[in-house]
């Protein structure tokens, strides 16, 4: 902090000096959830299968990192349209540090063939990837949807990689996940997401076996 300088000239600043910065700050704060709000309002609900692990972010707290089937190159390479996008997804040998990512789209299909957006009590079955494409496919059937992903330095991200957990319920959730994994029943850990009009997705809730967990 600076000391008020003795003898320095004091001039009164207009209201803009505080109003403009506050406007900028408000815009920044509102901009964070904007895309998510659009996806929640106009999007389609989709369930994906996932695997969790938990790290900690000093600003936003504990979260679980989610890894999806479609985050794996191997899974994507079995889909239709792979040959089209493969050149842009070539593994970079001595990758440039600041290399920008390549966007692509995965087409998902609802196996239950129910009305899109309706989640049953069990959370529904996970949607299955059927194709990949460079550009967002137009005119998809009602039970299909395109999800935007980014490929960067041999990693595929969808913006769905984190789910923040309250500190208080983190251990409880962890133990339930462990139980599910050691139990007789096949562990079913899924994520409910909403995919917005442009293919960007936001995570909404977690599904552990038949239970919906939302924070």
């Amino acid at each position, binding site marked *: *902090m*600076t*000391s*008020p*300088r*003795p*003898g*320095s000239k*004091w001039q*009164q*600043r207009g209201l803009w*000096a*505080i109003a*403009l*910065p*506050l406007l*900028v*700050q*408000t815009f*920044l*704060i509102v901009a*964070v*959830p904007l*895309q*998510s709000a659009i996806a929640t309002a106009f999007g389609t609900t989709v369930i994906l299968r996932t695997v969790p692990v938990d790290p900690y*972010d*000093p*600003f*936003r*707290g*504990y*979260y679980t990192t989610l890894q999806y089937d479609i985050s794996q190159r191997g899974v994507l390479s079995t889909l239709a349209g792979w040959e089209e996008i493969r050149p842009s997804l070539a593994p*970079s040998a*001595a990758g*440039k*540090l*600041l*290399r*920008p*990512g390549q*966007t692509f789209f995965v087409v998902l299909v609802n196996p239950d063939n129910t009305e899109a957006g309706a989640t049953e009590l069990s959370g529904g079955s996970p949607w299955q990837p059927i194709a990949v494409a460079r550009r967002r496919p137009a005119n998809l059937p009602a039970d299909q949807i395109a999800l935007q992903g*980014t490929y*960067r*330095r041999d*990693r595929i*991200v*969808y*913006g*769905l*990689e*984190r*789910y*923040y*957990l309250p*500190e*208080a*319920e983190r251990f409880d959730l962890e133990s339930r996940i462990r139980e599910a994994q050691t139990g007789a029943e096949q562990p079913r850990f899924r994520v409910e997401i909403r995919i917005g009009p442009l293919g960007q997705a*936001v*995570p909404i809730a977690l599904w552990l076996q038949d239970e919906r967990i939302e*924070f």
Partner: protein
Amino acid sequence: MYRGAPLRFAKTPGKLIAIAVVTGERVASDAFRRELQQEAQRWRSTGLISEEQFQQLSQQYEFVTLETAARDRFVMILLGLGSILVGIGAMTFVAANWQALPQTLKAGLLFLVLLICNGSGFILINRIAPNDRWRRLGQALLLLGALLLGANLALMGQIVHTSSTRYELCAAWAIGVLAMAYGVQLPFLGLLALLILGIGYWSALWDLLWLQSSIFGVWTLQMMPLLAAIAFLPLCYRCQSPLLFALSAMAVTSSLMVLIFDVGRSLPALFDALLLIMPFALLWAYDDTLWQQLRLLMGRRSPPPVSRPDQEDEAATGRCFQPVARGLMLFSLSLLYWLLSFQDVWFTSASRSLLNPPLVWRHTSLVVLTLLVFAGWTIGAWVYLGWRSQRPWRLDALSAVILGFLGVTATLFFWTFNAGPIPILATTVMNILLAVLALGMMREGLGSGTRSPFWWGLVMLTLQILSRVLEYETGLLVKSLVFVVCGLGVILIGLWFERYVRTLRIDSV
């Protein structure tokens, strides 16, 4: 230091006031004012200056505030510390993700507190009378407001389960704080913005894989030196803060270095070698008056009516940050030379041919563009450095020496990149350059009466000798011989310098 001065003051009271007024505009440091107060009291008691003159001095240098200055500063530290703790508390509250309050209520509350903090802080420093305790409280509230912005952004990200990286959070946060710093013109907010941006930037280099948006994420990373210069340099001038300038210059040059290391190896060896010394060259040639000249050129198409201000009247022309930039350059250059004086560095840097994937324009166009802008700036700054009105282009002696140093360094890089490692020659040259640089800094420090260059030179010299002793496993007899030869050499240089000290005139800038 002051022994000769009072006599002159006593004889010419009119001149005393003139001198004092000029110095008074450049706010004198507390240490100097305290020393001056003691001296002035002594002069008054010994009759060197009259009571009236003492009063004039006392008024000009505000001796009255000296007693309260220390107390005020302590209060300010406490207030600042309190704000930081409250801000961290708010951030930890967000991180706890407490479910007893609905998320929207939390977001609303935090935003309200942000508005109240910033608004009341602004009113306190701006609307109520200045220079009193309310102003300090206002500054503390603005600091708290800046930290609360981070808490707000983090909470929003948490609510929507964003996967964006820390860099994206910190960049947005830094933009908000920077906007506030411009609005209220407080340098410490600029420092905070720079710190937040720095944390984000360096963590981005680790979790680059997870960056979500290519516009806000990757593109800004690729142009970071340019963006940092554009965002922070005007603020440095508005706030007249050398500390902010020093940190901004470090941010710009270090992010520039990241870019150079990233793409340098894909470029021809000559460009790579030149790029590697570019940040140092830019720091040395940085000139505050370049902006004024550019503004004059932009404003009116006709050539500026005033000729280029001379080097002497630094204070009048506002060349306020050039010494900071040059100090930073000498500091970093000596560190570079010390690193390059190790033999291993030259072996590893020869692996250039192994790692050079060709540049893909689509991926690196912004990086190349940024580097081109900085190259243009550097060349322009050097041209401007040697430009004299109505005289041929000529560099001053010190700048010419520095240019020579940089040229030798670039030549060694170029040679190594082309012909493989040249460890013996390169380390010898680097050691000589380091020693000359360290001795030069000691000389300058002694000459100008400033301590830091002298001590830094001494530290570098000692570090160099110790490193060489530990690096090479030669026999003790040889080491002893080397030490004796070096010692004799230094003594001889000292004697020679003693003899020619009057004829040697370093063209100080």
